[in-house]
């Protein structure tokens, strides 16, 4: 007998027909709305991320599913996947990075314009994963600074989306002056950038 397939048993009512970004805190009256420039720019940036996929293995396949119609990363404003580092905000490194590939990742990172964010998807990009061997970079944070790590081998599309939402959170809250701060400069210095 065929096994009955059942899913989506728990019915979740929609909160709204159309999901729209929340308005930042501010003062408003008739015909005006005043808020911090920081918040407006954060709002704009976080809802229109241009991801740059750097896919080298199976995590890249999961990313393709994430971009596809079923999981649809486009729902979160990251519809436009750019394949030029010059135009992208978010470097998504997915897969094993061999030591010989390390300088390539770094060069792609250097070619991106500020502000830029990096997400390491999967065990290999985060820590070398199962490839504890002489030829594999033990985590891309040895060559570029990483904002969010997504665990999994490979992570499911939901996990990748969760990572991107974490990045959105970071972007939305980031101060406009952060990239000029001493702490940020020291971080870049520690990677030998500028």
């Amino acid at each position, binding site marked *: 007998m065929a096994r009955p397939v059942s899913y989506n048993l728990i019915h979740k009512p929609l909160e709204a027909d159309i999901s729209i970004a929340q308005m930042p805190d501010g003062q408003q009256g008739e015909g005006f709305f005043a808020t911090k420039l920081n918040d407006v720019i954060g709002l704009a940036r976080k809802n229109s991320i241009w991801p740059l996929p750097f896919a080298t293995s199976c995590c890249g396949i999961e990313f393709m599913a994430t971009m596809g119609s079923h999981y649809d990363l486009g729902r979160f404003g990251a519809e436009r996947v750019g394949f030029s580092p010059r135009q992208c905000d978010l470097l998504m490194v997915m897969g094993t990075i061999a*030591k*010989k590939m390390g300088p390539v990742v770094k060069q792609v990172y250097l070619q991106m314009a500020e502000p830029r964010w990096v997400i390491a998807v999967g065990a290999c990009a985060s*820590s*070398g994963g199962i490839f*504890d*061997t*002489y*030829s*594999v970079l*033990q*985590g891309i944070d040895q060559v570029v600074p990483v904002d969010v790590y997504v665990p999994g081998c490979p992570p499911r599309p939901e996990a990748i989306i969760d990572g991107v939402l974490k990045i959105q959170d970071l972007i939305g809250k980031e101060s406009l002056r952060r990239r000029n701060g001493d702490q940020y400069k020291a971080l870049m210095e520690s990677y030998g950038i500028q």
Partner: protein
Amino acid sequence: MTNEIIKQRLTEKFGEQVSAFEDSYGMLSFEAPKELNLKVLNFLYDDEQLKFRFMTDLTGVHYPNQTGRELAVVYHLHNLVDNIRLRFKVFTDINQPDIYTATGLFSAANWMERETYDFFGVNFVGHPNLKRILNVDEMDYFPLRKEFPLEDQTRIDKDDEMFGRG
């Protein structure tokens, strides 16, 4: 043509110098002194009967316990006419791993000798461009020699105890 005939032709030509004939799963393998490697390869290539004119593989093996003949270089040859394959090995001392290059005979040996140099440190005398091919240029050892552990020795975030290597 059978393995017996190949063995017979080789012994006729090289006598006692070709040795350790072995028939594993129908594939002939034998060894020769390393100075003779080009002579043997040339003979296998030129001989009207043998016609081993295609090199399928060339690689190295490290036997740390065989003093004086630690490094082996293995040639896999293929006779495309009769569809017969064989393995030919030469051994060398790890302290002086010089072996004549086969690039003059097989162009395919160029890439594979660079790879064998990269991983085992076999010095192919006469190779046109003997430098690392797969590993990073900065690597200062030959990673497939047995004295080097597989794990990345520069790692800092992995606790040996957690990985059962305490």
